[in-house]
């Protein structure tokens, strides 16, 4: 428990905490929100919980905040079991999706709310609130009420409020999802900067993969109440552990192939399989658009279906001879001739590829 003495001192957290989820399970009636979640967040790390809606990421976060109880499993902070600790005594600051500021309090009083609950004296808590508002770049908005602030400003205040009690863990529950695209970009950079400055252990729930990949030290992809993979963004993108991760993160095309002895026959090429190969037989080879090569070829059996201009690159959708579709990104100058209907040939670089069981 923090004491009054260190409230007005520097903003850095004394010692970042470790967070552990162990076998968390929770059912809401017939739906299983969490189906045995295990995850460890290291001190000072920002981990993004990423997944489609209903995958249990928010439930996990709310269990750490104390708003939900697991049916089984436990939540540990610095090795200490906090599963039974009530929400108002957890040491975790939370930023909600939106509309969480108290409408009858101005910005300063919102930020100072937690200090008031702890009986900190008025002058002291106002000073601390002002300091935090400065930290989030709203030093001049102290007297404003929530309805006088933009969505982005409201979320900054919510961030300052979440940090006011010097929590050991910072929880962000889709804090940017209600904001404009532009505000979202600047605010996410700012959250990241703050988080690194303070060195606070942070969990960030989002369904936006770009957000997760650009901000997090590690991204935990969740699916149907379970952890699919938790890895650094580059690894997650380049070496997805499961087919779900491969297709959920980034764009991925499936090309039919045939595997035998750890080598796959695809597009007339023989390429080694990356990681554990499925059993011999029909498979889908998973490829990123930037790894697919497309060239104009009068004898090619594939046809360009559509092109869309993305700026530096052009994304081309190609239909292969067997009817499957592949997406490829080409530099704009190379794609000039590839109009819809043009015959092309498709090939892959000579590198190990990911193979997944055939889905129909």
């Amino acid at each position, binding site marked *: 428990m923090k004491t009054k003495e260190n409230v007005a001192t520097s903003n850095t957290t004394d010692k970042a905490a470790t967070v552990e989820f162990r076998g968390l399970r929770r059912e809401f009636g017939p739906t299983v929100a969490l189906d045995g979640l295990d995850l460890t967040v290291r001190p000072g790390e920002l981990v993004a919980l990423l997944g489609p809606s209903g995958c249990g990421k928010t439930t996990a976060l709310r269990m750490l905040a104390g708003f939900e109880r697991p049916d089984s499993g436990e939540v540990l902070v610095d090795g200490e079991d906090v599963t039974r600790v*009530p929400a*108002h005594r957890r040491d975790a600051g939370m930023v909600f999706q939106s509309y969480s500021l108290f409408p*009858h309090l101005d910005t300063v009083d919102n930020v100072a*709310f937690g200090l008031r*609950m702890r009986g900190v004296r008025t002058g002291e808590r106002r000073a601390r609130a002002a300091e935090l508002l400065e930290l989030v770049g709203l030093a001049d908005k102290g007297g404003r009420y929530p*309805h006088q602030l933009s969505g982005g400003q409201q979320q900054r205040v919510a961030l300052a*409020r979440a940090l006011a009690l010097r929590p050991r863990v910072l929880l962000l529950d889709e804090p940017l999802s209600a904001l404009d695209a532009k505000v979202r970009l600047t605010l996410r950079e700012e959250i990241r900067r703050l988080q690194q400055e303070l060195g606070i252990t942070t969990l960030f729930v989002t369904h936006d993969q770009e957000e997760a990949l650009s901000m997090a030290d590690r991204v935990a992809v969740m699916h149907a109440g379970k952890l699919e993979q938790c890895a650094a963004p580059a690894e997650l993108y380049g070496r997805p552990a499961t087919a779900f991760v491969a297709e959920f993160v980034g764009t991925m095309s499936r090309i039919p192939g045939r595997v035998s002895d750890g080598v796959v026959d695809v597009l007339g090429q023989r390429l080694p399989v990356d990681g554990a190969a499925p059993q011999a037989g029909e498979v889908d080879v998973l490829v990123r658009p930037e790894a697919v090569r497309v060239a104009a070829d009068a004898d090619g059996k594939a046809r360009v279906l559509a092109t869309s201009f993305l700026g530096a690159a052009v994304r081309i959708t190609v239909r292969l001879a067997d009817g499957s579709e592949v997406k490829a990104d080409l530099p704009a100058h190379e794609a000039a001739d590839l109009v819809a209907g043009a015959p092309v040939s498709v090939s892959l670089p000579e590198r190990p590829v990911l193979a997944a069981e055939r889905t129909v």
Partner: protein
Amino acid sequence: MTATLPRVDTAPAAAVKRRRRSLGWVAVVPLLAFTAVAFGLPAWAVLDGAFTVKSTGAYSTANLTASWQGAYLTALLGSVKLSAVSAALATLLGLPLAQAVVTSRHRALREAVLTASGVLANFGGVPLAFAFVATLGNAGVLTRHLGLTDKGWDLYSFWGLVVVYLYFLIPLMVLTITPALEGLRVQWREAAQNNGATTAQYWLHVALPVLLPTLLGGFVLLFGSAFAAYATAAAIVGSSVPLITLQIADALSGNVLVGQENVALALSLDMVLVAGLVMAVYLPLQRRSARWLA
């Protein structure tokens, strides 16, 4: 060419706008004319009569002065006291009932309570009065079976009226406060807990302050509603409790001294002033709570 284009485009648009505006006037004028006659004339009559001395026809404030004296003042204060007491009680009792309704998981129960509130809040009046006479009147079922008269109960008294008024004021409070309670966001409770607030602290520092404008607004609304009530009081107490509405009715029915009819209009003007005050307090509170709870 480019210079003429906008003109070509805006001309018909402006015509449409003009047409719409004139259409607006045409449709609104009958309404305004009607209210000018059906509402304006009586309103003017009250205002004019309140300031006119019947015997001489001269303008003076004598009627208004008279309406703040003697039996009239007693009636005015009686009305204010009755309205304030029953509105305060209804506010205190309506809040927990509304909270129970809002947090109930039985949809059918919620709908039933809210619909019943709609009926009781608006359409009490005479039927309501008779229901209470049958229940708690001198020959009422409860009075007879529980021997309430011996215990000092009297429906035809101040507190008797309060009990009856609560029957339509509590539902009115439930209707007024339910949207506000529904507007209390889960995030506020969770954010408060997250900042170390206990449930009691959440209610004290977040929920009640946020609800305060609605509660005050509701109280004022209930006060106005009780203050204007006539049918219930007339059917129950006759004139055993002094109330301003009963005084006005008496004066209008000719039960007063000759030459005092215009005092009834002065009393009416007093009531309008009180009702106006009620609205002047209520509307800003309403606007504030709408902004907070939107």
